[in-house]
């Protein structure tokens, strides 16, 4: 990995965080985030996402390894790192007794915004995140979405070049989530802000991130653009629900001629099509020839869900793909076990 000085990016080498009497929460990760990039950091609960954010934002010292954020070492130049970054952590840490505008006043003072600019800067950001009407209300009465938006505004008061967002949309309704996505995308596109975004939502990473890193059990198991990662999985999956459950095995036998079996709900059979979408017509003809009546079928293009399952052997919700829950999960079927790397095997880059 390059160790060149990047004023607006992140460079991480061999970063480790070990807790006393516990496992390595982060186990020697390497990655780089380019200036102006939105980097999605994906992983299930307990994978090491938040611990990584805490280290990169200087809240938690690493046990080993190095990282440079905005050109500064996170240990030796911690104060400089803090001056360069904006952070919205997983739980929006707000004071329920302060109003939105009082929060802005507090944060502008904490960040050393010149006194003459504090009020203007605060109101500008409050308006930008759509909270002008609620600015004088105590935050204790805000909805989850309003709190997240205020937290984002607070992270921006000093015009940071680099923004860390730790699961910014967890618990938000779809509309609030979409609004936040728009704002994050705008920040990167118009202001050139580098965004490091952790999320459990694959869709979020797919929509927002220029590149994605997947962390599991403290190790990065995959990294690349969403498109490149999906291309690694490659082939679409076909899921067949026979009209008669007794014909499930017969359907699976037919499907096996067209590729490798893929996980499916108990009442269905699925295959990852070796011949891609072109094989679809032939599959239908074969099923018909074998007398298998079809109640429903779905063709799934590879998604980040598939990538995640293929790389970690788990659904992002934490279920093992071999588990009952995984078998009936609403997410599309993914690649066979043979395509997966063992958990914690390290980056495939």
């Amino acid at each position, binding site marked *: 990995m390059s160790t060149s000085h990047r004023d607006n990016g992140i460079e991480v080498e061999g970063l480790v965080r070990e807790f006393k009497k516990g496992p390595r929460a982060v186990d020697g990760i390497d990655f780089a985030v380019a200036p102006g990039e939105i980097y999605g950091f994906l992983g299930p609960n307990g994978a090491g996402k938040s611990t990584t954010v805490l280290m990169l934002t200087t*809240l938690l*010292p690493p046990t080993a390894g190095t990282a440079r954020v905005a050109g500064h070492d996170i240990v030796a130049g911690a104060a400089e790192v803090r001056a360069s*970054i904006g952070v919205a952590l997983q739980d929006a*840490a707000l004071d329920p007794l*302060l109003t939105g505008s009082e929060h802005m006043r507090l*944060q502008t*003072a*904490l*960040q050393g915004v010149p006194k003459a600019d504090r009020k203007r800067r605060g109101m500008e950001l409050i308006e930008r995140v759509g909270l002008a009407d609620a600015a004088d209300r105590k935050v204790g009465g805000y909805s989850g979405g309003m709190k997240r938006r205020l937290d984002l505004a607070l992270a921006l008061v000093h015009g940071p070049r680099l923004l860390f967002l730790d699961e910014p949309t967890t618990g938000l309704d779809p509309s609030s989530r979409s609004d936040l996505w728009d704002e994050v995308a705008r920040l990167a596109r118009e202001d050139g802000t580098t965004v490091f975004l952790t999320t459990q939502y694959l869709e979020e990473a797919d929509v927002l991130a220029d590149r994605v890193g997947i962390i599991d059990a403290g190790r990065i198991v995959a990294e690349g653009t969403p498109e490149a990662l999906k291309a690694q999985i490659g082939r679409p999956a076909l899921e067949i629900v026979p009209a008669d459950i007794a014909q499930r095995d017969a359907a699976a036998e037919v499907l096996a001629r067209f590729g490798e079996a893929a996980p499916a709900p108990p009442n269905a059979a699925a295959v990852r099509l070796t011949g891609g979408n072109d094989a679809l017509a032939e599959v239908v003809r074969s099923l018909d020839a074998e007398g298998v009546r079809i109640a429903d079928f779905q063709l799934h293009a590879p998604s980040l869900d598939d990538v995640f399952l293929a790389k970690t052997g788990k659904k992002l919700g934490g279920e093992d793909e071999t588990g009952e829950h995984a078998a009936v999960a609403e997410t599309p079927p993914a690649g066979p076990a043979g395509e997966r790397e063992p958990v914690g095997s390290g980056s495939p880059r």
Partner: protein
Amino acid sequence: MRRFADVTGAVWWRSIHNFLTNPAFFLPSIIFPLFFFTAFAGGLSSVGDVPGFDFPAGYTAFQFCFVLLQASAFGGVFTGFGIASDFESGFARRMMLAAPNRLAILAGYLLVALTRAAIVITVLTVVALIAGMEVTGGPLDLFGMLLLAAILSLTATLFAAGVAFRTRTIQAGPAMQMPVFLVLFLAPVYVPVELLSGWVEAVAQVNPVTPLIEAARGLISGDAIDGLLAYGIGAGLLVVFAAWAVSGLRRAEAAGG
């Protein structure tokens, strides 16, 4: 230095804003010292008539000094509660992420404790004067007495902050309050130390707060005091508990806030 002052000022502003705008915080801080003062100086006023009790400014002033120092110390403890609460809620991380030097956060909380003490002392003094308290010490004596109150306020804040930084939960409240409560009430609260006897007298003799209380009483009445002992102990307490608080802050930093 400007950034240090920015952070200190911001921490101070938020806590004092919440203190003054929320009756649930403000009223108990005022009412409890007034209650103690009324109960001690009023209800126990005949204690001043016991043989050997020789305090020229009277029993009201005698008790005022204790309540003054007690309120200052408890203000520090309550500030510690606020620190613990900020860590428990995650708000401390907001401050730690903004502060180039995190000692500025501690400095802000110390300023909070001093401000709270100043507010409570002002109200207490007005009430005491209305109640007929005699002050026979001069302006310099009174300044010295207020300095002792400030020292005790800062000491208690540093102690409570050290506990809060280490535990980072409001459940540690009793661990902050109980030692301060004990050390204050094992000092000569109701009568001079010379009139105590038995184990209470023995404990009071070695209690580091005793010289501070006695000095405050000497100052309000204009008597000669052992200033070297009182302020020396005060300075020593500040140094010891500053080290305790700063090492606690470092632990909190190492734990991720």
